[in-house]
């Protein structure tokens, strides 16, 4: 979707403002937001792709003014409601009113080291051979799906070069919407700054994205 998350190339969002000796957390609630988000991810009720999509579905004004832990928290509320774990009335009141859905697992403290060490690998074997080879010129698709995609707007309908075939991975555009993992080959595609930004582009700039096979067309 062409949501507020798709930020590459936007103007007017201000200086980067790196913070000297930045602490890991700026408030106690950020720690809890991190822990609660990861704990709920362990339910096994949604995928990382569905959770990313929940974040990008936040209203643009909210998304752009929120810190990332706020974005996580708001998206988590949406996921928990969608999957029947909590109701809005419960969130409003701050207490349990009904039982709700049962998760596949509840993350306990003794499970944390193994869960964090394992992560969630998303490479999957595919039967087909890669359709593109290293060095090949390709054009990215021009599309504007209202659903989840990982092809940023700035890199659509652009000509680039396949730099690497990176293996085969879960296809987020399907997986975010419960349509299955449908793994595809993934490629690193490089573009000259001029191809992406045109007039006035930094002549020394090269930008790359990691693109699933169905984002790409032969030239």
């Amino acid at each position, binding site marked *: 979707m062409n949501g507020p*998350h798709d930020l590459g190339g936007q103007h007017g969002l201000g200086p980067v403002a790196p913070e000297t000796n930045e602490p890991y957390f700026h408030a106690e609630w950020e720690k809890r937001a991190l*822990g609660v988000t990861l704990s*709920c991810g362990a339910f096994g009720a949604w995928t990382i792709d569905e959770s990313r999509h929940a974040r990008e579905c936040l209203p643009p004004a909210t998304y752009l003014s929120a*810190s*990332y832990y706020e974005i996580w928290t708001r998206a988590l509320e949406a996921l928990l409601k969608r999957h029947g774990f909590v109701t809005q009335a419960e969130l409003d009141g701050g207490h349990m009113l009904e039982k709700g859905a049962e998760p596949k697992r509840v993350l306990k403290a003794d499970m944390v080291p193994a869960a964090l060490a394992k992560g969630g690998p998303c490479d999957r074997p595919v039967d087909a051979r890669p359709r593109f080879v290293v060095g090949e010129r390709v054009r990215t698709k021009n599309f504007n799906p209202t659903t989840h995609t990982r092809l940023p707007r700035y890199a659509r309908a652009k000509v680039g070069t396949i730099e690497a075939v990176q293996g085969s991975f879960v296809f987020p555009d399907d997986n975010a919407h419960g349509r299955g993992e449908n793994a595809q080959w993934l490629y690193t595609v490089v573009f000259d700054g001029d191809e992406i930004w045109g007039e006035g582009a930094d002549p020394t700039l090269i930008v790359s994205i990691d693109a699933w096979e169905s984002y790409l067309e032969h030239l």
Partner: protein
Amino acid sequence: MSAHDHGHDHDHGDHHHDNHFTDMEARVKALETVLTEKGLIDLAAIDAIVETYETKIGPRNGARVVAKAWVDPDFAEWLKRDATAAIASLGYTGRQGEHMRAVFNTADTHNLVVCTLCSCYPWSVLGLPPVWYKAPPYRSRAVIDPRGVLAEFGLTLSEDRRIRVWDSTAELRYLVVPERPAGTDGLSEEELADLVTRDSMIGTGLALSPETQR
């Protein structure tokens, strides 16, 4: 807003959400309470997660990877070929580091990593991302005006240096291997790791020289 009216007070370090501060405190508390009453979360697990990222997983991991690559050409070669395995050999694995790629700065090319679509970041080697990495200014500008962004970090590269921006649009996580600073021949791997800053592994900085470090 300008860079100058952005205070660096730790309690209000993120200028994007000062107004939401108490709202969010209440909101997260409500969420945590409801989930606890339902038996869906374990508060001790949350503490364990926070402790892991406050004390165990941080940029020191990545700094050790870089320092080893500087002193051990075989390791550097392995890191180039199969970063996930090479990094795992040092014990750094797991969440948001499942599929690693290492990209090496050279005299010709400076690498810069961003995630324009969300906040993808190599947690296993760099820990939790800083606020600016996840915020709209960096995410919007790194791909179109990398030199302007680097200037805000105090880094000016020569005009003929190529800048390669890696937009982490998939599940590959990128670690920049900065160039080894001059005057570091006699240093041990641990001393070299002290020179490798978090920003140098994102590409918004360079490794420190032994003089500036002191």
